[in-house]
């Protein structure tokens, strides 16, 4: 029991988010529990409206939690002040879905990478050292820093921007990374590159990765553990093989049967 607790990076108990006031309230997330273990790849699979975006924001500390507690590294998470939030964000980071929306179009891309260096305490490093760090980060994602420096976001392609987001993570080396649909706006042929880079980060740094996606095939391919989310609740969770090849809940079964198959026959007679 204590062994398991030690290996948990982030966990939550009774996490709830309610929007609106008493008369017109919407329960986006309804008393969910979760446990993300160190070094594992976890996916949260849900359709639109399931609450996965809300829970992502709560885990990241971008939205307040109405009820429940989040535990980070064994202790209760405390993000009451700006300084404490900054400390928390040294341990947890995110990669977003739309690379173009994630970059401020009025600033050069160097600014984003420099912010990461500063966050890791590198403000007083020399210019050469900073450039070296940024070149190394770009190299990790197969980009050449010399070609990208001093450019604005709109001068780069979507694939390059998404890889820059991953370069950010390389510089920050957080303990846990939340990847919110990182491949949905990327071509099928470049998807594998992004996934490979994320998995390499996990291998080299024992980083926990949480994938948020609606694509159950992707979840199965890349993760060790899968959580299925519906209407604000986790209806099922377990190892990827268990949940996807042997689903127990009706919702999970229906979700899997609705996805077109190529190896097995896709049963079109049952419709949700």
């Amino acid at each position, binding site marked *: 029991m204590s062994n398991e607790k030690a290996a948990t990076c982030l966990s939550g108990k009774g996490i709830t988010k309610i929007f609106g006031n008493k008369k017109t309230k919407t329960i986006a997330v309804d008393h969910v529990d979760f446990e993300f273990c160190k070094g594992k790849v976890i996916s949260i699979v849900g*359709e*639109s409206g399931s609450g996965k975006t809300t829970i992502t924001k709560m885990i990241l500390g971008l939205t307040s939690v109405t009820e429940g507690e989040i535990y980070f590294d064994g202790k209760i998470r405390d993000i009451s002040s700006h300084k404490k939030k900054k400390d928390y964000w040294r341990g947890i980071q995110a990669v977003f879905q739309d690379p173009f929306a994630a970059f401020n179009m009025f600033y050069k891309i160097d600014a984003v990478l420099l912010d990461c260096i500063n966050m890791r305490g590198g403000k007083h490093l020399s210019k050469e050292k900073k450039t070296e760090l940024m070149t190394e980060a770009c190299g990790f994602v*197969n980009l050449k820093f010399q070609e990208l420096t001093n450019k604005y976001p709109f001068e780069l*392609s979507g*694939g390059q921007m998404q890889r820059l987001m991953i370069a950010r993570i390389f510089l920050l080396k957080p303990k846990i990374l939340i990847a919110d649909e990182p491949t949905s706006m990327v*071509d*099928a*042929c*470049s*998807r*594998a*590159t992004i*996934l*490979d880079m994320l998995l390499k980060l996990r291998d080299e740094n024992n980083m926990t990765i949480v994938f948020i996606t*609606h*694509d*159950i*095939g*992707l*979840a*199965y*391919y890349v993760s060790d553990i899968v959580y299925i989310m519906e209407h604000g609740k986790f209806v099922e969770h377990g190892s*990827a*093989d268990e949940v*996807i*090849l042997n689903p127990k809940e009706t919702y999970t079964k*229906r*979700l*899997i049967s*609705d*996805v*077109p*198959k*190529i*190896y*097995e026959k*896709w049963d*079109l007679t049952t*419709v*949700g």
Partner: protein
Amino acid sequence: MGKIMLQVNNLNTKYITRQREGVYAVNDVSLIIEEGKSLGIAGESGCGKSTLALSLMGYYFSPLHYISGDIIIDGRNISSMKPDDVRKQVLGNEIAYIPQAAMNALNPTQKIISLIQDVIHAHNPKASKKDISDLAKERFELLGLPSEVLQKHSVELSGGMKQRTVIAISTILSPKVLIADEPSSALDVSSQKMVIKMLRNLMEKGLIKSMIFITHELPLLYNVTNDIMVMYAGQMVEKGSAKEMVFDPRHPYSKGLMGAIIVPEAGIKNRKLTVISGTPPNLKHPPEGCRYAQRCKFARTECSIQKVEERNFSDGRMYRCLYSIEEFKEAYAYE
């Protein structure tokens, strides 16, 4: 071979940009679809599949311009017709087109039944309201849609229901060819399944004689269409039956695409997904030789220089590459 519903011979079309430059969006595309068959067109964003769909309708409006080639629908060559004639005689009753996110095109101020009346009156002004209503009810029942939908407005319907309604309205005149451009991408998986089921229903019941299904999701095509065609940079690079294309692709690009398919099935975990680095060529100045040569692992020097024609085989397969089947077998053996 059954009756040919749609035959396209060497179609070329282009876009003219604001700066008066030409973007050669569709280049030398030929295909044949028989009665009762469906063709899937796969490719990544920007490869020209949506442009091809617009071009097939014969409805050319600036900035899209027709350059050369034939489009023959059930024996009738529409490439020489003026856009207005195409609109009056061909669209709706011979060819129907469902654009991407078509469900947003439903007029929210009218009831569904009145939208259907508009469509039918455009081609048959004398049809009576009762006839239209009967036809609509019958059609909706056949396709598994509740007839209450006819009296509703589009804002009262869910996304999946709207999309299915649009498909039902577009095919109400039983066109010979239905072109569906990403009919299910914006929907969640269960609505997607319903749309797919409806399209298969339309084909099976003979309400449409043939179909072209355009999408970037290959597992869908595998389960819906008889044949699959892969497009790259405005050209067709390979064509074959769905099964052959997914499990035994020949062209390096098709192989790359099929190798990147992810499905929630056992066996996918151990596969290494293919990666194709680089970007498609600039279609303002398309390269002389093979358009895929820059990104191709197997490219030889002559690939970038020599013009590459389609190779047609007796089993109906086609691919556009300088390699022969034996050379492919050898090259892929090392994969």
